[in-house]
């Protein structure tokens, strides 16, 4: 086995050395003698035979070929196709980053620690918060952790969640809330696709720990964070803003009125990779820092007064506090946070704005192109790069027909928003979506919609 650095002779000699100290250990089997005989596996595992490196690559190429190839995709919905500068991969594939452990020994982990400190700083700048942690698993679990954080801070035990929060995030929130005895009340949206403010006001009670919204929301609409914050704060509830499209922060005003921001940083240079690994991160106001879940990197000095970085405030964490910890999280998404850090450094202060502007422009073009063939819903509030289209026919049928044109259409919404009808779908354009692809999508819609209607009739 090519990963094992031992000669047969090494094994014989090592066993002999063990036998010298512990007589009776004269075979490899003897090392496993504490496993009762009845439970010892005496056969080969039924897994595929040993593969050569070339065979492994061939096998995965075959898998890859069974996926979408050569399609123009208009999917977004929490996972975004942005360009990934090549230096991200060259840097994170350095063994010193890729194969290092959690930086519990700071003297030999300053590389990871300083980069995480830079990550925390950039996330604060982007979100308008005062502190940020070193990452959570993803945006959905980050939102759940933020909700539990708000419950601890306020001593209240209810949460109000907007229906315009990503449906899968809401499912995760429900899973976490049910056993913490946190009842969740969902608040609907107004005609402009934003949170229904009157309904929100009515939903908040003296037991409400937090209001959790997403902006840009699942429909791509930017929420009126200031107005929502005012309503939440007037009743003593915290405001949590979940951000699933991090690139929006380049052009959209940060949610400074929020108490906690839960960000999914996938858009910052992280491959879509069929759903993960991504990078959640929680940012918040400094005064609630001690309720923060997950790892935090802090600046300090060494014995010679030299600047350095360490994992800090670990008395919040499970390895110290056990059942009284702020979360059970241990391993986070450090290397993915590193990717985001490099991405943010490459685009920097000007690039992030320009990148976001390109996304706005592409989405505006797509909206006009599709708007000629179908009705765009939720006018009257600003959007980033996604919007809901009410197609002339079922979104599922339309998408099936679009596949013939090598186009993956927008995400059908009926599964989560039946009230929008079977024809509603969520379309997204990023800086990588070309004008030709958008024109082709509009033309294909024009061509197939009557046909689809015909089959349905």
């Amino acid at each position: 086995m090519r990963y094992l650095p031992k000669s047969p002779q090494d094994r014989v000699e090592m066993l002999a050395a063990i036998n010298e100290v512990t007589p009776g250990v004269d075979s490899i089997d003897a090392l496993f003698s504490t496993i009762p005989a009845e439970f010892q596996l005496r056969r080969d595992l039924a897994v595929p035979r040993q593969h050569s490196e070339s065979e492994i690559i061939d096998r995965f190429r075959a898998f890859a070929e069974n996926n979408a190839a050569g399609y123009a995709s208009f999917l977004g919905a929490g996972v975004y196709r942005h360009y990934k500068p090549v230096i991200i991969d060259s840097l994170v594939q350095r063994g010193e980053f890729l194969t290092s452990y959690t930086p519990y020994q700071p003297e030999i982990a300053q590389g990871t620690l300083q980069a995480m400190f830079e990550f925390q700083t950039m996330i604060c700048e982007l979100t308008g918060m005062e502190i940020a942690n070193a990452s959570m698993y993803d945006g959905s679990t980050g939102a759940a952790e933020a909700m539990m954080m708000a419950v601890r801070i306020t001593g209240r035990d209810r949460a109000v969640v907007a229906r315009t929060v990503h449906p899968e995030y809401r499912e995760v929130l429900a899973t976490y809330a049910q056993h913490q005895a946190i009842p969740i009340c969902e608040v609907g949206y107004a005609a402009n696709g934003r949170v229904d403010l009157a309904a929100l006001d009515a939903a908040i009670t003296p037991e409400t720990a937090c209001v959790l919204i997403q902006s840009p929301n699942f429909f791509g609409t930017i929420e009126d964070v200031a107005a929502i914050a005012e309503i939440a704060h007037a009743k003593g509830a915290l405001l949590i803003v979940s951000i699933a499209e991090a690139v929006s922060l380049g052009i959209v005003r940060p949610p400074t009125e929020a108490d906690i921001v839960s960000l999914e940083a996938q858009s910052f240079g992280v491959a879509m990779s069929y759903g993960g690994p991504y990078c959640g991160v929680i940012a918040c106001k400094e005064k609630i820092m001690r309720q923060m879940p997950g790892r935090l990197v802090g600046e300090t000095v060494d014995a010679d007064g030299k600047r350095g970085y360490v994992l800090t405030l670990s008395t919040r964490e499970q390895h110290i506090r056990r059942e009284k910890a702020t979360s059970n999280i241990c391993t986070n998404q450090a290397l993915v946070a590193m990717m985001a850090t490099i991405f943010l450094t490459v685009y920097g202060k000007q690039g992030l704005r320009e990148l976001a502007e390109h996304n706005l422009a592409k989405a505006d073009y797509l909206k006009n192109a599709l708007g000629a063939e179908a009705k765009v819903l939720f006018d009257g509030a600003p959007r980033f790069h996604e919007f809901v289209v009410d197609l002339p026919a079922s979104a599922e049928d339309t998408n099936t027909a679009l596949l013939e044109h090598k186009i993956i259409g927008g995400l059908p919404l009926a599964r989560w928003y039946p009230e929008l009808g079977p024809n509603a779908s969520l379309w997204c354009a990023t800086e990588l979506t070309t004008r030709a692809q958008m024109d082709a999508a509009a033309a294909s819609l024009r061509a197939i919609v009557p046909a689809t209607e015909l089959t349905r009739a």
Partner: protein
Amino acid sequence: MTKFQGSPKKATTHVNQNEGLIFEKSSPGKKAYRLAELDVPSVDAAELLGSAVRSTLGVMPELSEIEIIRHFTRLSTWNYAIDLGMYPLGSCTMKYNPRVNEVVSRLEGIADAHPYQPESLSQGCLGIMKLLQDCLLEITGMDAITLQPAAGAHGEFTGILLVRAYHESKGNARKKILIPDSAHGTNPATAAVCGYQVANLKSNAQGMVDLAELERMVDEDTAALMLTNPSTIGVFESEIHRIADILHAKGALLYMDGANMNALVGKTRPGDFGVDVMHLNLHKTFSTPHGGGGPGSGPVACKKILEPFLPTPVLVTRADAALGLDFNRPQSVGRVRAFCGNFGMFVRALAYILANGPDGLRQTTEDAVLNANYIRAKLSGTFELPFTTPTLHEVVFSDRLQAANGVKTGDMGKRLIDYGFHSYTVSFPMIVHGAMMIEPTESESREELDLLIDALRQIAREAAENPELVQSAPHTTRISRLDETAAARKPVLRWKGPAASIPLTPDTAAKEW
């Protein structure tokens, strides 16, 4: 011992040893990007967004590409890594991370797959998940599995939710989870997040589960025992079937923390010895890179009785042999993460399993156990071995002999850095006072093991003859021991401009070896 005196102005190392923060290196107007030409009309952001438009981006960096490459490359050189040498970290299974795993996870068609692309165009991704699931079920001897949890602790959370849903389906969620005092901190933290009380199970004199105590504690309010097997002292719980029987007799379940699965793969299967539900750490046993703290992946495998409660969606094979995702699971605990989990880690773990095959997986386990026992044999005269029970993949010594001279486990761990190694796991498990927990994994050659053994013997000598040298280690690193107390007392968690920052001092390199 004479101390070399460096003059403050003498630069003994390149500036790269004093790499500043990225913000300190930034200058307005520098760029490392160029966007593709905009092929649609540009828009007026202020007009489109109105009051939602952003005015400023604060202190984001502005650098050229070469400066960014150098910055992060320089930072990387300050890290220790598996690629540089051994991590004897017990419980962490720091093994080699094969590079072909990285290649296949980045293949076009895999890396750029969107989780919402139609099922018909996702058969490759689903096929990877199916094959990995089948392999993991065979390796664990369990009946059903979910790949959704993002890390080990997240897997624990999912597993205990399954336990809870199972008991609820019988009419009573029960109140407490038993956890041995030797357990990882995530276990009790997980029980709490799932709404359970934690009942601490004391280990017996061998550091193992005390059957009499277990029998006394298990009652109709007990939901499950969370057991690490082999335990955190590396011992296989030989009475595991009796442990399972005691629990099952009272309707409680056996949860296995699979952190130490590297000791068992191909040699025995948890499903065969009575485990009802367990998690795996793909970033431990199955070689996905630790990346300085993640991403991980924590699949949860369970017996048939728990299958109805698995998180949604569940991977299914449809009538036409196509793979699909089933969302219609009325008894499910719900979703624990958006989408299907850390898919990129599934690709890497499967590549690892393929590279090994059944013979390689078994040899891997045997080598991991051989390595740990070799270290144990070679060092048991040097350090105290608190439990003499035979161990599998790791060995836990204590610092008792050296502590008599004022040298503690943490000091010796720091001194190990001077010898070119990462520290072993310090002060864990908590049932061993002054624990020194060593897990070599299968990835270490005999030569590397002998270097570690020599280093630890030398450190033991130093502890006897020159304790101060060990207590003030490390001496060869770019920075010395950091003031963690100050960091926690007055937390500085972000850069706040040059005024607030501790200035960089020239590296005088006045080091004592």
